[in-house]
């Protein structure tokens, strides 16, 4: 997909160690071919994902961010993914306030045995990001716009 067209986009993944990272491993062991855009950051639990990590990625030029944890009720730490779900849902609603397209951020649940599902998740998300294209670059005109807005808002 991306590699074929020669235009890779920047997608950051935050995966919990016990389920989704294992699921991505299982997908690898099963040789399920996936688009190559995604770069995975391993975290112990989806509850470790600070929404600011997602924002930092998006603001600094990521075209898409994907967070994946254990299925609800199946968390290695009992309830970490519940915290993740609440925080990330709030984050999702907050993104438009910052002028970020909500479609650039997604969270999902993939267990360690679901290699096939992981492939589908990666394919779908990558496809979605490619449809959106690269994230808008913050350039001088945008900064100027923001400065005017800041000045007039007061």
């Amino acid at each position, binding site marked *: 997909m991306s590699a074929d067209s020669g235009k890779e986009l920047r997608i950051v993944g935050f995966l919990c160690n016990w389920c989704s990272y294992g699921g991505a491993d299982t997908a*690898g062991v099963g040789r399920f071919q996936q688009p190559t855009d995604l770069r*995975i950051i391993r*975290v112990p639990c989806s509850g470790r994902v*600070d929404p600011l*990590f997602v924002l930092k*990625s998006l603001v600094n030029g990521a075209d898409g961010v994907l967070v994946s944890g254990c299925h609800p009720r199946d968390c290695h*730490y009992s309830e970490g993914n519940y915290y993740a779900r609440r925080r990330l849902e709030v984050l999702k609603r907050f993104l438009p306030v910052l002028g970020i397209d909500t479609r650039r951020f997604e969270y999902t649940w993939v267990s360690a045995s679901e290699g096939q599902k992981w*492939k589908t998740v990666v394919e779908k998300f990558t496809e979605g990001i490619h449809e959106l294209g690269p994230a808008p670059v913050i350039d001088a005109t945008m900064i100027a716009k923001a400065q005017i807005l800041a000045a007039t808002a007061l």
Partner: protein
Amino acid sequence: MKIGVFVCHCGSNIAGTVDVVKVAEEARKLPDVAFASDTMYACSEPGQDGIINAIKDLDLDGVVVASCTPRMHEPTFRKTLERAGLNRYMFEMANIREHVSWVGKDKEANTKKALDLVAMAVAKLTQGKALISKKFDINKRVLVIGGGVAGIQAALDCADGGLDVILVEKTTSIGGKMSKLDKTFPTVDCSSCILGPKMVDVAQHPNITLYAASEVEKIDGYVGNYQVAITKKATYVDWDACTGCGLCMEKCPSKKSTDYFNEEVGTTTAINILFPQAIPKKASIDADFCIKLIKDKCGICAKVCPTNAIQYDQQDEIVTEPVGAIIVATGYDLFDYTKYGEYGGGRYPDVITSMQYERLLSASGPTGGHVKRPSDGKEPKTIVFIQCVGSRDKSIGRPYCSGFCCMYTAKQAILTKDHMPDSQSYVFYMDIRAPGKLYDEFIRRAMEEYGTQYVRGRVSMLYPKNGSLVVRGADTLLGKQVEIEADLVVLAVGAESAVGASKLAEKLRISYDNYGFYMESHPKLRPVETNTAGVFLAGSCQGPKDIPQSVGQGSAAAAKVLVLFSKDQLESDPQVSVVDIKRCVGCGKCIETCPFGAIEEIDFRGMTKSNVIETICQGCGICTSTCPQGAIQLQNFTDNQILAEVNVLCQQTLEKSFE
């Protein structure tokens, strides 16, 4: 900081689709990287020696290995670092096999991705620091959940190894599925003759405490120090007084109670002892059928009991046991064949499951070992066995092979001929799977010595005709339809995960697969471990298994527990949260969110602060993402470390745009 990067070829596993030489070359240019090279097999002895030599020669501070998943070899390389005199946590892995070379074919894109992953690992490591483990005491007692043959074996091995064992069994007797079997393949020896003595050993072993009719309610704590709450379900009989004489069973007037042990072939009394060889041999009352408990009448058992053991007002009781490790051996359940319309969906009494047939064959079963078909009690002459009922069928969500059905069907065909020499058995099969020792020979015997007719094909429908059942199916070898008039149809039902398996997994914090079977830590190299330290698996709860495999796993799990307990103290994982006392404002949010109660409030020079109890902290990091001050940081996954990785990937900084 001086970091060494080692990029593994993994034979052609990685080098086939990633330009490892280029990755190493580019890695050398990264900041803080003092050395980078590619290596054939980083995990092999020469590979590890290469790492050690580089650390010593170049005085490296940290190492990044780009190879397989850290879930596989992180412990291996951490040991390598220790051998070279470095702290084991000055190490990061870049997963360029499972996440790169195995999932993409484009070499150029893969190489780029691999380099990014290496750069991320390097950036994370530059923010890392050495961590030191602490030691803590352990409680050398083990909890075994499930008293089937795997649990019995595990309990006996642990107990013989000198450990205190708590064995919890859901039903009123241990023995599990094996105790229901008449004979076992491939030796055709009596199941209760080989299991019975083991059950007695459990009852008599001084190190084993048996809780029958009990279930695990709650599990708190961590490896070495678990607190397990066990519910002892009300049996309405004082088991200390009950002698198992069986007088109550003789006199009980409620004779239509569901007979769970005999798979509902026939009925039993409301007060009953599960089966003659039951351990513990104690009576219990089925509250759904007891006249005294339903209508407050009767009370005959209390009158006849010579030891006054009957207690109609008995309540569930909860006991707490401290243990250091847990072996899960909860087994499997049988597939509900009524999902299949073509086998009658439960409408025909003469279509029975293999386990029901096993009870009919058993001398201690409801028919005393005489095969009588359920509809009219006649002895069947033609018996059709249908295999793969609930196995290898995607349409009902059971794509896996249950593994033992081919074998037990052959055994039942042999036993049928032994019981009724003038009978004829037919087996409808898909493929014969007999990969064990003496297994294929056994199938051959069923075919050749016992004249069982094997028909390769599926059954499309069953219908009653003149008191028997017509089985219509395909013979794919002859390429035509076959119809057999059968007196009895036996369905070789497959195995599925035990009822309630997922609920128990949540209590144990272990994971399970799509079908509810528990996940082992590694499918090949860590088959009885789970990803939760101190929790081990044995038997069919991990996937369908026959008796030898279950016993093998029971012993393996016991060996793992004995290894764990061979030390008096365990080393705690230092990847725990640490509070920066200067930054902590004492808001207590971390205390509220911690799922383990690992954070306490302390008084620090008159100020309220949080403090992490290291041995309880499991390292999830929920507190770290909760703390408004960033004062509590999960070691090795600190904000700085994760952001360093983010920064490698997303380099469009606002500051740059402002310039």
